[in-house]
């Protein structure tokens, strides 16, 4: 054994050429001694025990880490980390040295050698696999032909340069992206690794915490600069409301109701998206009916004249469906006067506005069908009455005025059809056409209406219509709104079982909606199912644009987003790497079976056809099902799962299923398998031969020896049989 040690030591020592001869032996000697010491250290059993313990502890920690942060994170920070590779390499070194130092091996060491050689082969095979193996998914609907591998774990940002005129693709630039499995961005530093994370935690963020929180993906030669500012591993679409002078008024109104059988108050508009009321540009109004249960209508509108706020707070009420038109005009003495005209049965009639020379004739009341253009969802009524008037100053020519019910911001005069560019004449009188809302649960299911109005000074007012005793509509309340204070609209007394209150949380005099993505917290065990999104900035020349990109829910590439710059147009998508297989598969038929009467699947079977021109295979039929994969050119296709196909237009399942295959290629597999076989065989041999699981630890040999001793005893040689002695320590 000593010779072997020496040999090994010499082999790994560089020949001392330039050293002087006299000093050489001591130097070589010392170096050899050091190497020998290292070798012995690496080969020692005690070190093996420590390494095994360390590995076990690391793995145990890793599983908890996975439980807290998800599979992606543990892969990134532990299993694929350099530290872990070093630990495994160290273990391999330990095993190798331990095996070599015992050379030449005795017969009884056969099992030991086989086991440990097997372990080394497994480690080597794993290393080879890491370098060569690849995996991904292929998903297809019946009839689809697919020839590329979707490598889910390798995100890529794809940028296509488009021709500004023809919108054709000029070229594609792929930007590989390694965002990691934690969200990062402003306020959320990006951690570099476990050690740094621990350090940051220990020093409360003072040290070791983060890199820069942005990642530049574009190369210096690219025609643009692409920077990812924020990354979310699990995202949900959301809408952001920001102030913008170009935008329109909007308010966030929360409506809470409590029905008699419900335990607690509920939000009638459950999501923030539903709570934002963004006024329509032309009509300056938006209406929304609550999502669940509360049969009241909520409207938000804005006006630019103070007198309209007065009208809003003290509306002219009329029980007829024709309503009342309020005229504001200048009388003979130059004062502004108000005249209310109830229009019921007045078609064709004329009135002289008091103290003026204005004659008003009601030509007719038309109906504006809002439903056809989806406007009823903005205006709240279908149809909306339009009153057509002719107003005549003295004997001058009559001018046609119109008024849309409850939409005072729609101008009364319409630009003439012949000459749209000509400015409309100033109206002879401002008309505010007020129609009291019909509240009849039988016809329209409503029993109340809540209106919120933004005035010219950005002050908010509200009014509430409710049903009176005889079923007619009455104004319940009206007044100013202060932000964040709940206002009781209905109920609150024993006679009314339903209680509704509302509250204006936020108001923007001018704002726009932006589509963004927000991070979501996924529950334990589902953390890998999030859909990643990122916020990026793209700069072309001096022009910078911000955009949000999101990965596709399915395995198909996401629809690219077109970004137009002054002198270039790009289409951008957040995709994953797609690798051509070199052959393709066509899914003929996919069948999924369920346990009778349940939703538990019992089988998935895909019938595919394989086409490989390079091997002259054409339409070769194969059946892939659970536990029955398809092997071709080193690739293995496993039936992994299925997912119902959703019609993008109707959001409803089409009854078809996308069959998803897990695809893997691993040239190192035979190496690992042979290593495994050796480990098991070796362990068996070792335990059987040496430790004698089934031989009672050499009992027979001992008995034989004892018999021999007895025989000797009889001949008078040797001592009597030994007595057991109390041990030092039990």
């Amino acid at each position, binding site marked *: *054994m*000593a010779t072997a040690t020496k040999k090994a030591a010499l082999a790994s020592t560089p020949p001392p050429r330039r050293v002087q001869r006299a000093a050489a032996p001591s130097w070589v000697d010392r170096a050899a001694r050091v190497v020998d010491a290292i070798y*012995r250290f690496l*080969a*020692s*059993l*005690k070190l093996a025990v420590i390494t*095994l*313990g360390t590995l*076990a502890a690391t*793995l*145990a920690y890793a*599983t*908890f880490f*996975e*439980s807290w942060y998800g*599979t992606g994170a543990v*892969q990134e920070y532990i299993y694929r980390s350099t530290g872990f590779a070093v630990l495994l390499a160290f273990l391999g070194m330990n095993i190798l040295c*331990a095996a070599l130092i015992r050379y030449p091996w005795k017969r009884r060491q056969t099992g030991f050698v086989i086991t440990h050689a097997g372990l080394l082969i497994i480690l080597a095979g*794993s290393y080879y696999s890491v370098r060569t193996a690849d995996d991904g998914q292929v998903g297809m609907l*019946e009839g689809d032909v697919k020839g590329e591998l979707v490598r889910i774990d390798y995100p890529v940002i794809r940028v296509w340069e488009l021709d500004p005129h023809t919108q054709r693709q000029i070229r594609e630039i792929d930007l590989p992206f390694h965002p990691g499995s934690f969200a990062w961005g402003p306020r959320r530093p990006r951690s570099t690794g476990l050690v740094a994370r621990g350090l940051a935690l220990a020093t409360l963020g003072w040290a070791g915490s983060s890199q820069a929180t942005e990642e530049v993906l574009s190369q210096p030669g690219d025609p643009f600069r692409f920077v990812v500012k924020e990354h979310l591993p699990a995202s949900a679409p959301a809408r952001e409301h920001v102030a913008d002078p170009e935008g329109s008024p909007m308010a966030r109104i929360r409506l809470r109701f409590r029905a008699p059988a419900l335990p*607690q108050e509920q939000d009638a508009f459950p999501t923030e998206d539903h709570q934002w009321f963004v006024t329509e540009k032309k009509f300056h109004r938006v209406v929304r009916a609550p999502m669940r249960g509360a049969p009241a209508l909520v409207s938000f509108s804005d006006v630019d004249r103070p007198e309209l706020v007065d009208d809003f707070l003290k509306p002219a009420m009329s029980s007829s469906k024709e309503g009342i038109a309020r005229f504001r005009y200048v009388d003979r003495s130059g004062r502004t006067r108000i005249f209310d005209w109830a229009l019921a049965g007045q078609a064709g009639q004329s009135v002289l506005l008091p103290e003026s020379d204005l004659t008003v004739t009601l030509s007719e009341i038309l109906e504006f069908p809002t439903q056809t253009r989806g406007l009823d969802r903005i205006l709240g009524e279908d149809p909306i009455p339009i009153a057509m008037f002719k107003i005549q100053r003295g004997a001058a020519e009559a001018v046609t005025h119109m008024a849309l019910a409850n939409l005072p911001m729609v101008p009364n005069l319409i630009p003439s059809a012949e000459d749209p560019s000509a400015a409309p004449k100033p109206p002879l009188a401002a008309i505010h056409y007020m129609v009291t809302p019909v509240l009849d649960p039988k016809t329209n299911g409503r029993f109340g209406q809540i209106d919120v109005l933004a005035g010219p000074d950005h002050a908010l007012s509200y009014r509430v219509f409710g049903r009176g005793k005889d079923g007619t509509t009455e104004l319940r309340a009206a007044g100013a709104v202060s932000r964040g204070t709940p206002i009781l609209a209905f109920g609150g007394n024993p006679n009314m079982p339903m209680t509704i209150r509302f509250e204006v949380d936020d108001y923007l005099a001018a704002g726009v909606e932006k589509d963004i993505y927000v991070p979501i*917290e996924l*529950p334990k*065990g589902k953390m890998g199912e999030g859909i990643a999104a990122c916020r990026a900035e793209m700069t072309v020349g001096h022009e910078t644009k911000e955009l949000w990109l999101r990965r596709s829910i399915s395995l198909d590439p996401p629809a690219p987003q077109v970004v137009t710059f002054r002198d270039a147009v790009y289409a951008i998508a957040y995709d994953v790497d797609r690798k051509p297989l070199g052959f393709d598969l066509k899914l003929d038929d996919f069948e999924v*079976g369920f*346990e*009778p*009467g349940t939703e*538990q*699947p*019992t*089988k998935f079977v895909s019938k595919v056809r394989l086409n490989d021109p390079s091997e002259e295979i054409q339409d070769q039929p194969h059946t892939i099902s*659970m*536990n029955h994969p398809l092997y071709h050119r080193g690739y293995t296709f496993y039936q992994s799962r299925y997912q119902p196909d959703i019609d993008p237009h109707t959001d409803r*399942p*089409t*009854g*078809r299923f996308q069959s998803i295959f897990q*695809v*893997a290629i*691993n040239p190192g597999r035979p190496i690992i*398998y042979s290593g495994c076989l050796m480990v098991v065989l070796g362990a*068996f041999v070792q*335990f059987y031969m*040496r*430790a004698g*699981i089934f031989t*009672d*630890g050499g009992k027979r040999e001992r008995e034989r020896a004892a018999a021999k*001793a007895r025989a000797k005893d009889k001949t008078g040689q040797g*001592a009597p049989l*030994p*007595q*057991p*002695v*109390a*041990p*030092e320590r*039990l």
Partner: protein
Amino acid sequence: MRRTSKLFAGLIVAGFASAGLAAQAAETVQRPGTSPAYEQLGKVAVMHEGRIKPLDTVAREEVKQVYGKETVVVRDPREEVEKIVDPESFNRPGATSWTVEKWGPVAAFLGWTVRPEFWDDQPFILVDYLPLRRVVMAGTIKARLEAIAQKSTCPEGEKDRLRKLAVAPDVTATALIAFARDSKLPIEDRRTIAELAARLTEEHKWLAPRELEEARITAKGQELPFMSWAAALEKQKRDFDNNPQAAERPTEIERRAIEVAHRLGTYLAYSGDQFSNAGLILVMPRPSDAKYLAYTAGAIKEARAAKRTEDLPLMKLDALRAIGTYWDVIPVEDHKTPTEDAAADERFAAWLRDSSAWVPLKTLLKSKPEDLVAAGYPEGPVKAFLDAYHALEQAEISSPGQVSEAAAAALLTASRSLGEAVNPTKYPTVAMIDRETHFNAMNPFWQAPIAYGTALALLAVSLGFIPAAGKRSMSALLGSTIYRFGLAALAIGIALEIYGFYLRVRITGWAPVTNMYETVIWVALVAAVLSFVFEMIYRRVYMALAGSGVALLGTITAANVPLLDPSIHSLQPVLRSNLWLTIHVLTEVSSYAAFGVAWALGLIATLYYLTATYRRSPRLGELALLMIPGLPLATVGGAGVAASYGAFGPEWTTGDSLFYVFAVMGLVGGMVSLASVLAMAGEVVNRLTFRDQAGSEEVGEATGWETEDADAETGGAGIVSLASGGGGVATLVKPTVAEIRARETSHRVKLDARGEAMQRTAATVKPLSNFIYRTMQVGVLLIAAGTILGGVWADYSWGRFWGWDPKEVWALITLLVYLIPLHGRFAGWVSTFGLVVASVVCFLSVVMAWYGVNFVLGVGLHSYGFVEGGSQGIMMVIIAGVLALPIAAAWRRHLGYRPMF
């Protein structure tokens, strides 16, 4: 040592005896629904949760879900009341005897549907969580107490007390019982109060459906019926599970309330008239002939023409539901009305035969017979079936639980002839049904613990009769007889389990590797078999003792822990018909059994160490030193945990992280304190069994038996660490016979009593540690093979050999953890005692791999059977309790070898 063994044996026997002598009260027991008629009825084939099974199985599963056990015990309600109102006369011998009805599952289940008016008032909905029962009963108690206070018969002085009780925030059983006993109210009012009090006692675990339905819960300032409350809670829980930020975490009471609501819902679904899906007993296959297709086509036409589909005949609605289900799983363009396209018809008919759900009993009963005939049911059998059912219903109503065998047999025959006429291929054979009912009735897995328990007791007793070397005596003969009987019991247990597995595999059609329950009983079997084999080789009792212990623990756990579901379910596709999976899981789980046996052997050895004689006897005061850190830690930790649960009011509740800190403190403190107590107990046992004549530790020193290593003398697989040429590399060197003899001769010193006692312990512990070593080797071999086979299976099923899935990783960790003592022994780091401790401690990693991955980590591909809540708290306490044993042994051993201070 023999004295110690006898003491153990005596203790064990005493324990068994006292358990057997449970007090028996005067009661007349009736057993309705156990006659052969119900056996016949149980054989009616039904479809339930996607599987065709006998009604017997369904009844057992549903009754167990609702009541907690398979036999519903209905006690005379007056019994509890009398016990409270007048305990003296209640306990007097010869007092009134009370009737107890023990309802068999099939009869109870039939009763729910047929006689709801009776069952509505029986307390059989399991509400075992006392705080929840208080919440449910609070409203009723308040109302009743106030009603009594309103009565004119109520004495003035009692009114105030009553009102005070009524408004108290938490009325306890004790307060009510005290009031019922000593108040001056009329006896009937006291009985009313006693009745209420009985609902709040620990023994009364069940409430009647009506009580639950009528209960009004005050939650969040609102008064609600129980079911509405539970529905709101269920929604909250769903929201919370989907997104922990979206909703509040349900409290323990709330989670229990959801469970109770499910139980009540199950009962109501069967008893009520409404057509909820849960309670439909699917009794009959669906026809699939041309007549049925035409009938379906007609139903579709009618449904398209009708305004309200609800008004269609039930059988037509059922046909519509069936074709709707079919259409959901095929592409839209293939949706063809039956009879239009021959090829589509054929596919639909095949689906109807093989994959469609059966027709519910309620649909058949409420349809007109001519409608059923139009749907394709043959006229004669369908009428016979309906008549047989109605006859049975009448019989059950007129004599509950006492149906005649003829009526039941008639229904069984009628349903079989109808079922076979409609779908001859899929209707189960008589043999299949009989096999399952036989399995249910016998349940070998429930019998096995009795055999294992007997084996454990007999073997433990036989340990006390180990003959002194070579002597033949009466006690030796007795001992070996008991030992033989013990082995026979173990063999019977094994046979029972094997028979059970045979039946179960025949019923399910796949290997027993699909859920936690199956792995637990499999481990019990493998542990028993393994230990039996080893016992046959070594004949040293310990192996069989440890094996029967593990098997008993396994089978008892499987039968009693609600987390382990013994019912047979349908299976994930990936787990079906897979050879590699079967081999992998069985190997892997068998390794758990080997480690389990090693663990049990370790515990036995620990007990020896705990009571062994050492060089000196430590004083009890020294042994109690561990309490100095232990008790304060336990107190602070326990108080912290209690505070987290709101024991000291809401302002003391803490966040999650602090809770875990306190929990760990409490566990560690409790474990150390318990270890101290155990060490003291061990010392006391040792002093009782060992009388040291010299009585001083100096004598031991003088005798000079501390010269050699323990391993050398006993000459087992003696391993001596030698610094060989490898430098720190240990090599196995067995002393030659000559060496041993040379050593022995040099040490032939006359030992004193203490020395002899130590010698005897060494002789006992040595083979134990050898057994531990062997079983660990078997385990390591199995787990290495199992883990690798797992890789093979993963490669075969998912396309990767190793994916760092938590279950895979924990199997690897277990392997590594057991390799540490095995290598450590070669390195000279792990002594005999170290190996014993390692066998107990390393088992933690098996617990983690087996239970923890599913219930603590809750992530990964292997958590197919992930169930929420695995009683982690209880598990931690058990683990800490078991770990206290080796700690105690180590502490006492440590003190036993160190000089006095």
